[in-house]
């Protein structure tokens, strides 16, 4: 019996056949839903000179709104404060999925209609273009006739297809949590973590004066040793993501996906979808972000303790010391927010500051400042932007210099 309601129309799907390269007649058939294409699209606003934005403050309720004008067509749009925020994200590089996440972080709520509604409005005013691929992929596609570009594009395409993941991971994470994972989130674990960090750091300090003798344990094949250290490190990235997932379970949220892929087509990485934590408290978000990085602190300290106990100049000592060093670096990089990389520490920082697009805004403002297009009298936020770029630049230079120094002295 019908209840009189009408089911929403099914989303359209395209069936595409994609030929495999260099595999003779091989091909894959993929079904692409229009919804997937929509959330992965990267809307780009028209170039800077093609629009003007002016603020209008209501004298009645004090609410801010904005007038957006297309200077080419003389069409005007009225944007709310929230819509202006979304408009600023539409830089052609950020996907709608990421824009929705940024919105959620900024306002702590999400109206599922706001983005499609704004896009329709902007398209009508001809203020938007849609860019489906990254700039790198566009550049490679443009230069496809050059063998190097073609090879790079093919390699990225092949690696991007490597994605081993599951969306049905909630029972798996729940199981691990129930069978001991919950212990990670106890006060005792926090104390043990701090103690281990102190002991591990002390071990590193004691090993430091003998660094040359320690790395001599790699013998005549240091490169192979470093590669094996890196491969082992990759596995610990999986553990890092696993702990993020356990944190979600701890706060009663849902782990939507867990898997392995090649980020941007060339960075092998494990990943976990923690977006459900946005519905939790700020404390839950901070704990989720920090807990994953602590895996590297614990493992790094453990490796340094092993290195301290191992025979001086042995392979075990060199391997343990290198692994400990790399884990500590990973811990610092993951939690240090000023390095232009949007990792755990950066997410904590933007959450605390309430500026989810800090990096993007800071880069844009500093760029305009360097080109002489911005006033040199800073507001507090603009000073924050400049400070972020300065500290991040100095940090990256220091990080690279430290690693170069380390490699030069080690080998």
């Amino acid at each position: 019996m019908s209840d009189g309601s009408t089911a929403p129309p099914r989303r359209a799907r395209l069936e595409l056949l994609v030929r495999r390269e260099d595999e003779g007649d091989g091909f894959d058939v993929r079904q692409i839903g229009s919804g997937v294409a929509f959330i992965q699209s990267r809307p780009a606003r028209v170039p800077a000179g093609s629009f003007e934005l002016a603020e209008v403050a209501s004298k009645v309720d004090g609410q801010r709104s904005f007038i957006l004008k297309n200077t080419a067509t003389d069409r005007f749009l009225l944007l709310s404060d929230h819509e202006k925020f979304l408009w600023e994200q539409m830089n052609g590089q950020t996907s709608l999925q990421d824009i929705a996440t940024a919105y959620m972080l900024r306002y702590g709520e999400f109206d599922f209609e706001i983005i499609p509604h704004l896009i329709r409005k902007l398209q009508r005013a001809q203020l938007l273009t849609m860019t489906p691929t990254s700039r790198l992929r566009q550049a490679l596609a443009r230069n496809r006739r050059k063998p190097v570009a073609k090879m790079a594009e093919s390699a990225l395409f092949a690696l991007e297809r490597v994605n081993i993941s599951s969306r049905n991971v909630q029972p798996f994470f729940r199981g691990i949590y129930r069978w001991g994972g919950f212990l990670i989130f106890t006060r005792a674990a926090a104390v043990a973590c701090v103690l281990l960090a102190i002991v591990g750091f002390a071990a590193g300090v004691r090993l430091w004066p003998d660094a040359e003798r320690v790395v001599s344990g790699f013998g005549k094949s240091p490169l192979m040793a470093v590669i094996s250290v890196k491969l082992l490190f990759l596995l610990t990235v999986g553990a890092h993501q696993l702990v993020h997932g356990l944190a979600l379970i701890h706060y009663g949220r849902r782990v939507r996906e867990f898997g392995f892929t090649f980020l941007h087509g060339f960075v092998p990485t494990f990943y976990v979808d923690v977006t459900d934590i946005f519905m939790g408290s700020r404390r839950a978000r901070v704990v989720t972000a920090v807990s994953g990085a602590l895996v590297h602190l614990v493992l790094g300290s453990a490796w340094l303790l092993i290195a301290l106990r191992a025979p001086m100049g042995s392979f075990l000592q060199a391997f343990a010391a290198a692994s400990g060093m790399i884990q500590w670096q990973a811990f610092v990089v993951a939690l240090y927010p000023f390095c232009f990389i949007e990792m755990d520490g950066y997410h904590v920082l933007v959450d605390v500051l309430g500026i989810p697009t800090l990096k993007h805004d800071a880069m844009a403002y500093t760029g305009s400042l360097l080109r002489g297009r911005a006033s040199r009298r800073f507001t507090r936020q603009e000073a924050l932007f400049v400070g972020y770029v300065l500290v991040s630049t100095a940090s990256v230079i220091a990080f690279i210099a430290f690693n170069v120094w380390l490699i030069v002295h080690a080998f």
Partner: protein
Amino acid sequence: MGSSADTQVFLRSVRLFRNVEGPELGILADSLRERSLKRGQVLLREGDTGDEMFLVRSGSLVISKAVTGRVEQVLARVGPGDFFGEMALFDRSPRSATISADDDAVLLVLDRATLAKLTEVSPRAAAAFFESLVLIFIERLRASGDLVAEVTRWGLEATGLDVETR
């Protein structure tokens, strides 16, 4: 390879030959060539020349049209009892789509000379064949219209474009 009798039994189950009588089916069965394809193999490409149509005896094939680079739009899938490639049989134009085996497949090949022979030997059987062909053409034309509408809807949904209030 199947015998002529097996082929005749198969042709009887094909909608295209539903109204063709037994003796004429026998003539056809003797004239059809069999062709095998491995999974992934391309039978013919968009733009190729040819004057043959194909009946699918077993397996499945994908009919696709080039879109960009290595990407093609899937127009249809065909399986046992289906046929394709008939347009080139009549208009001698280049092939309008690419046919790839989605699975190991066995095809029967009907060329222009065989069709001419059937028309000459039995105009009544040829008329029955053409009538079935036209009915299937109509179905496919309707399906093409549906596909165009689906692709258009996909484009509108994927871009969020609102054309109603533009």
